[in-house]
């Protein structure tokens, strides 16, 4: 006779944790909580310290372009800094994405294991990319300022002469140094290793079965990349690009070294002068009295929220794409 389900009940399994286990778990939980706390504290403290600035300017904090924080009628706002940050990041991504993806493809799909029989190309390139990520931003900034900028000035001048009809490329200043364009290029170079490294990993996870399926149908190498590797890696690529974007948005020092800080809204990327929130904080620190500091903290808050949003969106996209795969 079959036993019905209602007649069978599982037993309740009880266990008591020992004191040392509870202490251990408590300790780790505390660590996790601390991390959580730090993030919340960052938000709170920034907000708290930024209140005088917000009170002084109100909503026009987001629309003002100047940075006059002392005197009887202070007027300041992050409009130019915010637009500058976005412009630099966009330029950085335009520069970084093609090169990074090409490099990731090269390392993963095209590079022979050994060149001339003994030079391990793949390993070497992977290590080089890692090293690029570890180089301090001040060094990138220095190199950009002293080496790259002189070379790029020529290119900038050429662009303004021949493509000056495009509004972005118009020339509004005497020189083409210290421009948003050059900052964007350097920041882009700094983002490249992150994007490359992550893309390369995702490419290498492409299931072998699909690759071989495509090859057995006569697809050439480029075809396999386009029709198998890319569809599979879409989510990872986007995630890596957003990670790079986060880096670009927050980059302070390289921009601070190169840019010639100017407060009017700057859309002429090839012309001298520009602004970014991180560079603003870095360069203006210490001036402007307490209201000035509060204003900088307010700018920091804006940056914090911005990067937080980008980060959250990035992980959502990546996780969703991986879930879709199943």
């Amino acid at each position, binding site marked *: 006779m079959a036993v019905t389900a209602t007649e069978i009940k599982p037993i309740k399994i009880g266990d008591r944790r020992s004191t040392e286990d509870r202490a*251990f778990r408590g300790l780790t939980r505390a660590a996790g909580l601390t991390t959580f706390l730090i*993030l919340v504290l960052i938000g709170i403290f920034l907000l708290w310290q930024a209140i005088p600035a917000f009170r002084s300017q109100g909503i026009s904090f987001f629309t003002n372009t100047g940075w006059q924080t002392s005197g009887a009628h202070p007027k300041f706002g992050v409009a130019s800094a915010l637009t500058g940050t976005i412009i630099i990041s966009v330029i950085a991504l335009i520069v970084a994405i093609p090169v990074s993806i090409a490099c990731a493809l090269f390392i993963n799909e*095209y590079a022979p294991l050994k060149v001339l029989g003994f030079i391990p190309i793949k390993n070497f390139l992977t290590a080089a990319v*890692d090293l690029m990520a570890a180089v301090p931003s001040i*060094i990138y900034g220095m190199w950009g300022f002293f080496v790259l900028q002189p070379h790029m000035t*020529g290119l900038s001048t050429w662009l303004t002469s021949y493509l000056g009809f495009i509004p972005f490329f118009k020339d509004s200043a005497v020189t083409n140094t210290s421009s948003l364009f050059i900052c964007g290029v350097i920041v882009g170079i700094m983002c490249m290793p992150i994007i490359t490294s992550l893309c390369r990993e995702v490419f290498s996870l492409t299931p072998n079965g699909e690759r071989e399926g495509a090859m057995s149908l006569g697809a050439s190498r480029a075809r396999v990349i386009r029709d198998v590797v890319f569809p599979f890696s879409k989510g990872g690529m986007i995630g890596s690009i957003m990670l790079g974007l986060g880096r670009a948005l927050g980059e302070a020092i390289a921009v601070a070294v190169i840019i010639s800080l100017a407060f009017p809204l700057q859309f002429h990327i090839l012309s001298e002068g520009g602004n970014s929130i991180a560079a603003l904080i870095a360069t203006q620190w210490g001036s402007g009295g307490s209201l000035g500091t509060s204003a900088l903290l307010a700018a920091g808050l804006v940056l914090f929220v911005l*990067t937080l949003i980008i980060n959250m969106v990035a992980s959502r996209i990546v996780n969703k794409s991986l879930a879709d795969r199943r």
Partner: protein
Amino acid sequence: MTTELGPLTPDDVDDVLDDLSEEAPEPTARPLKRIKPREFKTSDIGVLALSGLSSFSIVWILFTQLTLLSGPLGFVVMWLPVFLGLYWFVNRQLFNRQVAVDRLIGSIVTVGAILMMMPLVLLTVFVFQRGLPQLTWHALFSTQQGVVYTPGSHNIGGVKHALIGTIEQVLIAAVIGVPAAVLTAIFINEVGGRFTKSVRTVVTAMSGTPAIVAGVFIYSLWVIPFGYSGFAGALALAIILLPTITRGTEEVLKVVHNDLREASIALAAPEWRTVWSVVLPTARSGLITSILLGIAVAIGETAPLIMTIFGSQVMNSNPFSQPQAALSLLAYKQIKLPIQSQIDLGYTSALVLFIMVFAVFILARLLSSSLSRKGGGKSKRSILSYTRWTPASAMERQDEGPETEFELEMEPLPPDSGERDQR
């Protein structure tokens, strides 16, 4: 087919073995011409070189006449499209369109890789070129105290104060940050509970936070009440270290086989023992690597130090009071100054910084490959993968159930490996 089903008698087995022991045919005596079919043959290298050279000459001729561009950068910008176009065209004529497109994409990808490597090479050359002449014992072991910078002076001062500052700040940051990070990773991976997902999200959020925001935070939290100090800088660096090391550790812990944990539990070990004596040692190489990488990043950070340590020109070996200097901050400040010897000090500081970061990086890479090979893990991973989530583990996390129905019934086949077994 005659079916003689049933167990084999010993005689049967002997018979079969006899049959099998019959000699395999002799390997062929005639000389065998081994071939390794290659997509890109020697003749194709000729095509490549030819296209390269001809495009070079074409652009050389036109370049100086036609454009405002000057310098090597502009030349390369002109040469590349001409080369690629020519290469595609030649291939199309020699072979067919498919080959031309395939080769073109291959060259574009290669160009991309070269473009990627160039900044690194040029950068290294730059740092050494400008900093090495100044790198004397004097520069390493003295500070800026008492140095008067005048145009034309050759006394650049020294970086000792900055060197000590960086070392102290990073050490304190590590002492604070590493245990916190490892414990958090253990919480996420081993202990878990209701907050696991939120903590992981928080760590992800923190890792995207710009360094300057961390500095600004510590300013409002610590510097306002307690003043500038090396310790404040260390706190900011710890915030930057924390998510990097947490994520790297989490990834490494995930890779540790569950069998090991179960064996330890079966021996009635308390949980902390399992983690301390079994899990952590197994993940040791990855752990050390991610810690070293976090340290390398901390050494190089400049932005958060601006408003926490403030910088100084004299030696201050007490990190807990008074502003301190740091290599990165020193470089940043010096290169914006007008006098050449001041800038030179900046170069020197940058070089010392670079060498430090490079040394830690090499150490991290050596340790990761040597230790992981002993532990049977994968070597030759990108060590950057120790600092963030890896797509592989993220994919595993999604794996809730069987993919399709047939996997339930059938045993999984052995995974595809690069080398195919004989079958």
